């Protein structure tokens, strides 16, 4: 993973966290929902080194399939409408952040699982690259919630054993 991609992932996780903590600062619930879904597509694209930019840019189906499956799990008699609208219609708009946070976490788990399964025909070096990206992604997801300390080096005295 290049430093630029790593920075991008870091940005995505930090922006997701900000939107989940303070959705009102980022617009209406419907707008925030759209923005979060776009960020999740971006996260998935960066995590998968084999993803084709053209195909990924025009194909929202994998994410939307996961999303509608999730909505139907958490909302009885769910429709195809955005989660924010369905929650508002039910008088449960205050649950939006918690439910979106749950999906953001679940989506990462599902993406990790999918990357492993779909890697059956990839070269060993690509498999290591996918793994490194997945761990980098998980790392950013964790670090955004827990600031990382700069380690102190263990210094060894200058001397030689025989």
């Amino acid at each position, binding site marked *: 993973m*290049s430093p630029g991609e790593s920075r991008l992932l870091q940005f995505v996780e930090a922006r997701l966290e900000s939107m989940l903590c303070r959705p009102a600062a980022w617009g209406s619930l419907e707008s925030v929902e759209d923005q979060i879904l776009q960020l999740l597509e971006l996260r998935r694209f960066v995590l998968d080194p084999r993803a084709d930019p053209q195909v990924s840019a025009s194909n929202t189906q994998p994410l939307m399939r996961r999303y509608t499956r999730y909505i139907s799990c958490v909302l009885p008699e769910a429709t195809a409408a955005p989660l924010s609208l369905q929650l508002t219609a039910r008088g449960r708009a205050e649950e939006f952040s918690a439910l979106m946070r749950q999906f953001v976490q679940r989506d990462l788990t599902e993406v990790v699982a999918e990357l492993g399964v779909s890697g059956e025909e990839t070269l060993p070096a690509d*498999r290591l690259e996918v793994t490194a990206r997945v*761990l980098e992604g998980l790392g950013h997801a964790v670090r955004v919630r827990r600031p990382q300390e700069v380690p102190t080096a*263990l210094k*060894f005295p200058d001397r030689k*054993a*025989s």
Partner: protein
Amino acid sequence: MASTRGQAQVAFLSSVKASGGKIAGARFSLQRGPLKFIEPTYWLTLDQAGGRSLQELPWTSELEEYLLFQLGLKMDAEDDESQRFAAILLNNLRKAESIHGKDYARAVLVEVLRAKPGYDLADLLDRAATPRPSSGSEHYRDCRTFLEHSVDGLRDSAQLNLEYGPDEASRLMEAALRITLDEAFHISTADLLFPRQDARG
């Protein structure tokens, strides 16, 4: 007064020692696992006036300096010792990464270890997907010197502070370096994520 967690750990153990207590047993684990971050931890059995207690202490560089350089404390089991050495190497690798960048520091580590044929690491080094770092810069020299000094210094400390024989020290270092490479390049985790392909070889 202790201002960091490591200083507090050292102050606590020093006070136990000053009051006649001693460390009667020492275990260590990185607590490794698939898709998780390591949690290097000491479990020290303290003997204070005949009474024993078990202390769980997260690894810190201050605690390690105290146990390694001042007390010369060995672990009770060889496997624990190699994991402890790996914790030290991984900590110093992270330090190098924080200065020189992750990919660069890891590439330099691979080069440092390729130049040490005394350790049997070829299978892991071959799987460490990393470019060859350019070697003309001051950046390279600093990073290489630091990592080389970390590896050689730890081996020397294993003999001088912990009083392991040369063969034992080499065996512990080799095991620790294998863990370090595995953690740094996620090799076991990659095998877990792609089990079917690996089964086919």
